[in-house]
């Protein structure tokens, strides 16, 4: 059992996946360095990218879920009363994505009318993320990855417990 995950070898795969997500291109396209000589009718031969392992798929999915949760928290922090209480949670999500060798790209800002609504949205979003992390930790083939994801779920648990019960101005 390796002591530490991961997954240096998945960096290239994830980098490509992130770029695809950001540009909306289909997988397999040469999106980073498109050559003017190419024509749409003659697709470039794509290098035979190795198939993703189940754990790599799991990590990509987890990064997506972390990104979604991050979007909710960052948006909620636009309310002054939530700025400070949610700062550690933002930091945690950033670190979690960083350790998974992903990037926080393409997050969306939900409609949050007021601080109370925003806090409720954060709570719902974090509970959903927690469930996803627990499920991912249970599915991981690598014990080291399972440990990492379980630790992240425990972190989310702690932040959920520590969230203020209501907004104080």
């Amino acid at each position: 059992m390796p002591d530490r995950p991961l997954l240096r070898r998945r960096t290239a795969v994830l980098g490509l996946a992130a770029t695809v997500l950001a540009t909306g291109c289909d997988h397999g396209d040469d999106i980073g360095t498109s050559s003017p000589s190419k024509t749409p009718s003659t697709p470039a031969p794509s290098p035979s990218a190795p198939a993703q392992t189940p754990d790599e798929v799991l990590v990509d999915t987890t990064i997506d879920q972390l990104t979604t949760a991050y979007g909710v928290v960052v948006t909620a922090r636009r309310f002054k009363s939530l700025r400070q209480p949610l700062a550690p949670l933002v930091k945690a999500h950033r670190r979690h994505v960083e350790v998974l060798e992903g990037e926080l790209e393409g997050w969306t800002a939900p409609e949050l009318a007021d601080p109370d609504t925003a806090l409720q949205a954060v709570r719902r979003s974090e509970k959903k993320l927690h469930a996803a992390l627990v499920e991912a930790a249970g599915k991981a083939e690598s014990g080291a990855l399972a440990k990492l994801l379980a630790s992240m779920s425990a972190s989310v648990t702690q932040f959920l417990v520590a969230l203020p019960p209501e907004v104080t101005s």
Partner: protein
Amino acid sequence: MTTELDALQETLAAEHAAVYVLGLIGSRTSQSAEADLYTAVRAAYDAHQESRDTLIGEIAGLGATPSPAAAAYTPPAGLETTDGRYHAALAMEQGCASTYAALVGATSGAQRLEAIGLLNEVAARELSFRGIPEIFPGADEYADR
């Protein structure tokens, strides 16, 4: 390589120690003057006793002999003050979180899911002992990456 049985035995050893430490802290905590601490210690003590007993059953179910509690434990320092008791309880829970996280990594299936649940429970309890949310509970090796 740590086998599942090894990890279960290590977790059981941690639970034996936790039950001892919490019993000691509880015996030095005033139920009236330190109600919050007393309640938290009581809850943690009950939870660790239950986990210990469950582990004993699981290890026996694998055909192995559950490790007994040690003959003696070194009491944590600082138990003469309220702050010291909080600190000792928090340190104990953080140690258990590391043990559960290791158990997650060494197990699979239902056993792993149970370990994940225990890790989450102990992480939540840390906050009742003045802990603050961590980014990687039980997995300090990632904290400084």
